């Protein structure tokens, strides 16, 4: 028991495949031995020598006390764990570790018969284990790679995210309503686009979409994305909070349906990221440090597996975190897209950031990576790093990296959770500043990208609407100039000047929904990081106007144009239309000069 315990000490740093067996052996054997052998023996022994022989030994009593402490601390480590949040866990650990040396010493002292060679066969037995080498394999149409000599994964390799919930409930709930989780079947826009891509370009083309959106399906050899049914209806995951279906399915079914979207293990088991976009990452799901019973299907096994992790969580933590995960180059493996048909860059968020002033590694004060804005908690419109824990009962951290993944899509996550919507809207509102002035019968409106480390808007910028809504009135309240209003059908008026890029196909016609056919850039009015764009509007007949003039300028944002939503609503009647978000507003009045 002493040796198996000692081998788990991080000073010794043995290989994982030995460690996990030793950990399980140590815990199970200790429980069995202490309950069935040790406690009865100690009782008997003490009874014999103290009650009958009447000759208590001082070192015996001391030995017994230490043994009791070790047993209690051991049971504490097993049942509650050493999770870092409570001091009892750490006390138990130190008592259990250092107490054991003392105990061994006392044992030899008490018995005067050190028999160390009994431990030899254990060490010998341990050397029989072996391990397998690792090589790299590849899949097509996307850059996604799988670590090891494998062409695809098995469904069972994709540890269900619902499993992570039992210890990381807060992070799980943030992720559950985020756009990273709801990237596939609960995102009706995606389902229409993948369906269209498959129909127009052939079903094989779906792999391009799926390798970032649905890596679990693509790596297990599925050729298309399916959707869940709730009895006879399409599963209403649009408004579902906390990934309820996923959690219920995991509880009810022995082999739950493969989960959609970016699961916990997708991001947390990436070993390499090439920053080239189009899923240029390498996954390693197999060579994980799995504790004994971690993947057990039975209740008892699952319970034991969790206890084993909690009693020694360091290795668990190491196997799911990586310094790489903090870098922008990691996010770049999906947040850049190149059309495989035309070779043109469809999305270049990472490239935009690379050239922006936010990419300044020499100046740590100025340098900002993706997670510094997109995984940092916001409060009252400002970044307010969240103090809290990422594991239930774990250590308090100064800046928990929140998993809301706030970006620009306030809409889909907002259908599920107001908290998510608020986080995203707050982030959006930090991005731009407005200014307005009048000069030579012209209204000049300046928009400066002050907060985004990439173009504004970025991402699928042909599907994002960012525009100026302007109302200029004279002193009678008569509208002199108006721009950027919505039409009755919900589409943006023709006079509006949205900041966006418009894709054309090889003949120079707008691509519409089929954005992967982008070959010629018809227009690009996005605002790069740190830059200011001035829009000028002519004022008609300004000589006769009744001053003072008052102007209201709003910077509006909408996640999808109405015509895109119209198409998607045809397939999903429950989908509401996304609203317009006012990012910034400025009011000013002008006197006659």
């Amino acid at each position, binding site marked *: *028991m002493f040796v*198996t315990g000692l081998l788990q000490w991080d000073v010794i740093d043995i290989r994982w495949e030995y460690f996990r*067996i030793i950990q*399980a*052996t140590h815990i*199970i*054997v200790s429980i*069995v*031995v202490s309950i069935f*052998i*040790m406690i009865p*023996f100690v009782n008997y*022994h003490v009874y014999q020598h103290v009650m009958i022989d009447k000759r208590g030994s001082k070192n015996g009593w001391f030995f017994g006390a230490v043994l009791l402490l070790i047993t209690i601390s051991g049971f504490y480590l097993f049942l509650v764990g050493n999770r870092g949040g409570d001091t009892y866990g750490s006390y138990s650990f130190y008592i259990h570790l250092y107490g054991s040396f003392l105990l061994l010493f006392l*044992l030899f002292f008490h*018995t005067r*018969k050190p*028999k160390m060679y*009994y*431990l030899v*066969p*254990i060490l010998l*037995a*341990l050397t*029989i*284990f*072996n391990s397998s080498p690792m090589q790299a394999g590849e899949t097509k149409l996307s850059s996604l790679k799988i670590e090891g000599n494998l062409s695809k994964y*098995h*469904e*069972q390799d994709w540890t269900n995210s619902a499993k992570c919930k039992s210890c990381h409930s807060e992070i799980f709930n943030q992720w559950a309503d985020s756009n990273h989780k709801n990237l596939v079947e609960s995102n009706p826009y995606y389902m*229409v686009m993948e*369906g*269209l891509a498959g*129909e*127009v370009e052939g079903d094989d083309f779906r792999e391009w979409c799926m390798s970032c959106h649905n890596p679990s399906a693509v790596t297990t050899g599925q050729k298309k994305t399916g959707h*869940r*049914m709730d*009895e*006879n209806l399409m599963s209403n995951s649009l408004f579902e909070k906390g990934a309820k279906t996923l959690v219920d399915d995991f*509880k*009810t*079914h*022995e*082999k*739950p*349906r493969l989960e959609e979207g970016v699961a916990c293990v997708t991001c947390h088991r990436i070993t390499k990221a090439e920053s080239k976009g189009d899923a240029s990452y390498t996954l390693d799901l197999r060579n994980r440090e799995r504790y*004994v019973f971690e993947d057990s*299907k*039975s*209740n*008892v096994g699952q319970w034991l597996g969790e206890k084993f992790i909690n009693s020694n969580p360091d290795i668990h933590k190491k196997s799911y975190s990586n310094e790489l995960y903090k870098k922008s180059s990691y996010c770049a493996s999906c947040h850049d897209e190149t059309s495989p048909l035309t070779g043109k860059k469809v999305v270049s968020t990472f490239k935009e950031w690379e050239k922006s002033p936010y990419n300044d590694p020499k100046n740590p004060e100025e340098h900002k990576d993706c997670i510094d804005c997109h995984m940092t908690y916001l409060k009252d419109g400002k970044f307010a790093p969240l103090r809290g824990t990422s594991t239930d009962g774990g250590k308090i951290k100064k800046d928990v990296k929140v998993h809301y993944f706030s970006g620009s899509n306030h809409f889909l996550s907002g259908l599920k959770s107001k908290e998510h919507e608020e986080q995203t809207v707050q982030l959006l509102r930090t991005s731009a500043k407005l200014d307005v002035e009048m000069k030579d019968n012209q209204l000049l409106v300046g928009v400066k990208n002050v907060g985004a480390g990439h173009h504004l808007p970025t991402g699928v910028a042909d599907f994002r609407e960012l525009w100026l809504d302007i109302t200029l009135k004279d002193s009678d309240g008569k509208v002199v100039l108006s721009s950027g209003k919505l039409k009755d059908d919900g589409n943006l008026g023709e006079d509006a000047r949205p900041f966006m890029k418009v894709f054309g196909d090889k003949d120079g016609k707008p691509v519409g*929904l089929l954005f992967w056919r982008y070959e010629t850039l018809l227009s690009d009015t996005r605002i790069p990081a740190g830059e200011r764009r001035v829009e000028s509007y002519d004022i008609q007949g300004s000589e006769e106007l009744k001053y003072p003039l008052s102007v209201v300028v709003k910077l509006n944002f909408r996640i999808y144009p109405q015509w895109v939503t119209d*198409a998607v609503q*045809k*397939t999903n*009647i429950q989908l509401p239309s996304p609203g317009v978000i006012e990012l910034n507003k400025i009011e000013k009045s002008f006197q006659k000069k």
Partner: protein
Amino acid sequence: MPRIIFLAAVWTIVTMIILLMLPNLLPDRKLLTYNDDELRKGALSKGMLPVPKDYSGLLKIKDNSEKLLTIEKIALGKELYFDTNLSKNGDISCATCHVISKDKKHHDSPLVNGLNDSSNSKVDCISCHLRDESGTERFSASVGEDGKEHPFHLNTQTILNSSLAKYLTWSGEVNSVEEQAGLSMQSPFKMAITPAEVEARLKKDSKYIKMFNDAFKDETASANDTVSFENTTKAIGAYVRTLLTRGAYDRFLDGNNSAISPEAKRGLTSFINLGCKGCHTGMSVGGQVIQRFPLKDFFIVEALGFSTPFISSSDVFPFENIGGYLGKDNEHLFRIPILRNVTKTSPYFHNGSVSNIREVVAIMGKHQLGLYLSETQIDEIVEFLKTLEGDVVDYSSDKQ
């Protein structure tokens, strides 16, 4: 005494380690393997036959005859199969639940067409699923006229290859596709129409009068009587008898060794050796027997907490007992489902409670065979089931 503690501890540790290492130490058990020809021979000898490629082969199938399958009857049946006028409100046809496409052209771009069609505000499931050619709408309970769900929450079984089955429907109380065509039209929670109404409606259509006359003139005494409910079911039956599918599995049985993967071959071996073929047999790979489900009771093992593969609202079935259906005569007797195209027809079991086919295979192994199948065995069997997918054979070319 301390020596005893040491000994006990050491021996417990050593035993524990040996036990945990056992899977690594023991050599893999050598299971019986067959070469491709032996496997084919074995399958064929168990009655697992390929679907015929041509019309003459089609006629050799039991119950089929040249008189039953004339080109006129098939053409009429096809017309009737897709006609929504055969239901009470004129909303649904046979093809509404047993989804197949009338014309392969409809496959091309239903989603693009649906999105561009300004006359329709909705793009329905068919837009994506017509291309599946599964012969079912894949709901967990069938939906009939007036949106009525099946009272026992039974789902639609695929119509493809159904004529090869000896028994039809979940309870297996129907014996021919003609009989079932008549029952489905009359059933209040399906097409909900009376035979008299069918005849009256068809007699109003000169197109049908001509088609019925062409198809049944030799069988009916007077030309006025050809449009009858019985002949309607006969014509639909004739068309359904041509809805047979062929796929990789049939090509393998025909003698093409490379038609299915080695994994699928191991799956087929398990399918035969473990006993699945005992019930899922014949050309249709199922539909020939009525059997009890669940057969084996594993209740005690589950109650002890060693294995909790599912939570059922009662212990009647190893899955949720939605609808409360208990099979034929409430005796847990079910017609063995046809496994051809099974991978295209989720959700599974009579009430559609399970959606993952791997789970279905595990349940069937456990409750019908009393075997806990390994993950590899399940994978291989699923790989074999995938080879049962097929396309509807076009028998029209060599008929003419």
